[in-house]
C-alpha cells in the first residue's frame, strides 16, 4: 500500500520526492519519525471533544465542559490530580491513567491556545 502515494500534489519541497517515489514504484515513503507537534496535539485533543464541547451552551452541566480557552496550568494540574487519584471523578480518574504526563501537557497546551 502506498501511504503517501496520494492523489494530491505535495508542497514543492516534497513534490519531487513523491513523484520519484511514484515513478519508481516504491511501496511507501515510510512512516515519519515524528509528526508536527501542533497537528499531533490537535489530534490528541480532538479525542476529548467527543464529550467536552459546548453543545449545551451556557446550560452545560458539571463535567464535560468545553475545554477551548482553558488555562493551561490549571487544566494540566487538574488532569494530573485526576491521574494521581487526588480528585474524585466518575471517568476522568480512569481515562487519565491511559495518558503519559507529557501527553496531558500537550493536550492542555493545545486547548489553552484555542478560542473558547
Amino acid at each position: 500500500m502506498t501511504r503517501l502515494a496520494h492523489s494530491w500534489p505535495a508542497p514543492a519541497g516534497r513534490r519531487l520526492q513523491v513523484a520519484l517515489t511514484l515513478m519508481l514504484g516504491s511501496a511507501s515513503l515510510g512512516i515519519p519519525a515524528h509528526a508536527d507537534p501542533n497537528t499531533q496535539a490537535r489530534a490528541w485533543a480532538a479525542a476529548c471533544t467527543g464529550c467536552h464541547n459546548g453543545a449545551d451552551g451556557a446550560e452545560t452541566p458539571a463535567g464535560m465542559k468545553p475545554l477551548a480557552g482553558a488555562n493551561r496550568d490549571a487544566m494540566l494540574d487538574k488532569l494530573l490530580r485526576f491521574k494521581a487519584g487526588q480528585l474524585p471523578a466518575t471517568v476522568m480518574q480512569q481515562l487519565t491513567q491511559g495518558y503519559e504526563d507529557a501527553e496531558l501537557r500537550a493536550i492542555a497546551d493545545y486547548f489553552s491556545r484555542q478560542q473558547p
Partner: protein
Amino acid sequence: MSRRHFLHTALGLGGLATLPAWSGIARPGPARVVVVGGGYGGATAAKYLRLWSDHGIEVTLVEPSAALVSCPLSNLVLGGSQTLADITLGYDALVARHGVRLIRDRVSALEPERRRVRLGSGDTLAYDRLVLAPGVDLIWDELPGMARPGAHDAVLHAWKAGPQTAALRAQLQAMPDGGICAITVPRLPYRCPPGPYERACQVAHYFARHKPRSKVLVLDANADVTSKGALFKQVWAERYPGIVEYRPRHAVLDVDAATRRVQFEFEPELQADVLNLIPPMRAGQLAVQAGLATHQGRWCEVDFLSFESSVASGIHILGDAIQSAPGMPKSGHMANQQAKVCAAAIVAALAGQDINPQPLYNNACYSFVSDRDAMHVVSVHRYDAARKTMTASPLGLSSAPSELEGRHALTWARHIWSDTLG
C-alpha cells in the same frame, strides 16, 4: 492550512506531467473526498475533513437516510424513557455550517480503478480519497427460518435504530403480562457489546412497571456476558429479580418466526412471546461486495495510522465495519474517534505532510440500567508501532450504576451528537 494553499498546490503541477494517470495528481481544483455512510464515523469524518483542511477539501457525504437515528440511547425507547424523535438527528449543520455536500442516495458500486463511486441514481462521484463508513450488515442466511415470508415482521432485531426500534417497542406493549421476551446475543464481535444487556435492563424496567409477571430471557451465544459482566449481573439480581434470566452458551441455530420458537446448537428449543433476535454481523454490504472485508470475509482490515484499507489504496474504512484492534469495541464513540484519526491522516496526506505516527484516543460507553441510572466503561487506545496495531489500556468501570452517571450519559449523548454533526 488555507484554501489558497490547497489551490496553489493544486495548480502547481508543472513537474508532475509524467505521473501515471491513476495517481489522479494532474487534476486542478480542490481535493475531493467522498464519505459513504452518515453514522457516527462517516458524519464525524466529513465534518473534520472540512474543519482541518480549512474548508479546502471538497467533501461529499452520501447517505440514503434523511437523518441519523442514534443507536446509543435507542434502548431507552424500548424502556419508554426516550422517543425516536429524541434520538433522531439531522445533517443540517454539516451542510450549512461546514459546507459538506450531502447526497441522499446509496452507493451501488465502487470503481476504485477509476477512483469513483457509482450511486443508486446511476450518477458517478469521483474522489481523491474515499471514506467508507458502512456500519454493519446483519447476517441472516445462516437462519433458514428467517427467509420465510413475513419472518422479519414477526421477529425483530432492532439493532439499527429506527423503525425496528419502534416496532419492537410496540411488540412489548402488546405482549400480555406473564409473557416472555427473549433477547438473543450473537458471538463476539458484534456492534455494541453491552447493548444486548442494556436492552435486557430496559425491557425489565418496562416489565417491572407495567407487566410485573413477565420475564426477560437473555440467550447468549457467548460463554459469559461480554461487557460490564459483573455489573449487569448485579443489576439483574438486585433490581430485576425474577424478571431477568441470563443463559450463556445459547447460540441460535434457527427460528420459526410464526410461532417465535428458537432452536439452539446445544440447548433445548424454547418459545417466546416477543423474540428479539440479534443476529451475527459483518461489515456493511458495500465493503463486503467490494472485497474489502479481508478478515474471514466479515471485517475490513485497515492501517490504524490512517484507516486506509489494507488492500485498497486511497480507500479508508471506519467504525463497526473494521477488524478491530484488541480491546477496541464496535461503538459509536469509537467510530467518532477513529474518524478524526482518519480525517487528520487524509488532510495531511493530501497536503504532503506527515501523518501523525502516534494516534491516541479513547472509548466511553454508558449503559442505562433503568430510566435514570447508568454505568460506564472507558478505555484509552494508543498505537503500537512495533505491532502496527492499537493497544488498549485496562478498562475503567463504574463501581455501581448511579443517577449521577445517568445524567452524565445523557450529557455525553448530546455532546457527541454535537461533535459528530454540529
